[in-house]
């Protein structure tokens, strides 16, 4: 709690405490802690002097402002038409086998979350995924294994 309070203060000092600072602050928390806990949202509400419901209402609108547990590396697999035509299912299968989780789940060590997402703007290099903010394109199951191995060694 103590650390969280510090982070919220630090972010509010950086972005300001006006209403339009809310999203940058929430984005900052997600960047550091992967998702928004109830405590974090209450803390932000206090800092900006708005109701916690308003913070939650805003956060829950945006898919990147997760309010459920997410791992350190959030893998978002594009499921929109071109990626889906060009082998999205094999990519998902490979990730599920490797991480031993299903779409929507997080590994028990809280390192990886696997979710599907809508068009991420790489249709000409499909299939594509985002790991946190980094895009990886023209994927094959082999390439995915290499990429994830790289992240596993990073921890």
């Amino acid at each position, binding site marked *: 709690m103590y650390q969280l309070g510090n982070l919220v203060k630090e972010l509010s000092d950086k972005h300001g405490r006006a*209403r339009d600072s809310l999203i*940058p602050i929430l984005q900052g928390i997600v960047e550091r802690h992967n998702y928004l806990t109830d405590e974090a949202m209450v803390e932000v509400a206090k800092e900006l002097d708005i109701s916690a419901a308003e913070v939650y209402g805003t956060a829950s609108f945006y898919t990147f402002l997760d309010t459920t547990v997410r791992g350190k590396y959030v893998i978002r697999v594009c499921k929109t*038409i*071109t990626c889906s035509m060009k082998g999205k299912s094999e990519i998902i299968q490979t990730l599920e086998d490797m991480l031993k989780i299903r779409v929507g789940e997080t590994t028990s060590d809280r390192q990886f979350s696997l979710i599907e997402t809508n*068009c991420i703007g790489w*249709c000409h290099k499909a299939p594509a995924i985002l790991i946190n*903010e*980094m895009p990886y394109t023209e994927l094959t199951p082999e390439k995915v294994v290499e990429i994830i191995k790289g992240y596993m060694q990073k921890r």
Partner: protein
Amino acid sequence: MEKRGLNKVDLIFEKIDPKEVLTIAFKMSPADIIQQVLDSGLKGRGGAGFPTGLKWKYTAAVKEPEKYVVCNADEGEPGTFKDREILDRVAYKVYGGMAIAARAIGAKKGIVYLRGEYKFLLPQLMMELEKFHKLVKEIGYDFRINFCMGSGAYICGEESALFESVEGGRGEPRNKPPYPTTSGVFGKPTSINNVETLVTSMMIIKHGPESYSQLGTKDSRGSKVFSISGDTPTPGIFELELGMSVQEFVNEFGDGDTKAVQVGGASGFCVPRKRFEQTVIGFEGVPTGGSMKLFNSSRSMYNVLHNYLDFFAEESCGQCTPCRVGCQQLLKGVEKVKKGEVKSTYLNELVKLADTMKVASKCGLGQSVGNAFKTIVENFREEIIY
């Protein structure tokens, strides 16, 4: 089949000296800048196609000391990726276009709303921005740009939803009027333009409206950056003169077995093979923000439609009932028809629902779900049913 070449253009990615063009622009009066953009015939490149010069003229006409130029870089339409490429390769021209728009409407502040999916571009965009701020200072113009990051919501590409998001709220579209030109971001007069539109305006100032308006057709002047994907041997970004038919496009980019082209993304129109010849890509035919998806005969159009409806059901903001419930019911409806749980005539009811959504939805999202739905159902009815 006759194979005619398409006219490839290099305006958007052409290397220019921003100082030279901005100096020209700042010597012109705001009214002259607006007149040049009006004369060029440029229409917004995000998809809706509102004349850019008019947008600037209306915003300029409002007497209010604080105004904004907003660059809409929340490119989310399935199949569109040209704005990412433009920001990646020629961000200085996007900023330059914003400065010219600012000069035209009398704004001192600019905002770039960048979709969260493109956050990896931010470090290089900030470096370019620093250079740009130095340049405008040198020229002696008071204009600053800030970045605002999206967080994964397609609807925030809708202008008033984007304003709500910048102001720190849920990205729910506002009622119109008032239009952004009188009450946009923070309630101030705002000109909100697509990334490509801003770059194009800068090139119009550089080359003059006459040479620009020689490209294209009466209703669709100039050139456009297309994002091409799907069943094509050459997916990617291509800048082409407007006015070609879908057939000419398919001759160039098809794989020899193209059965349909989805023009304008999930919210756009499906053009089947029998209509390739007669359909023009542009405002006189099928408009597009740049998304062009080719499907060959191995693809099931049911899967395409299902994918789009699933997309809309997730991305509808849920604020107005026609769109929130409509998207879900269209999705469930086609699933039921496919499984044979209802008679195939149920599709007619769904078409009526799509028509209702067009009339009753609050914003462009709900209003355009019917475009893809109707054009796919009408042209590929048997693929939806069997």
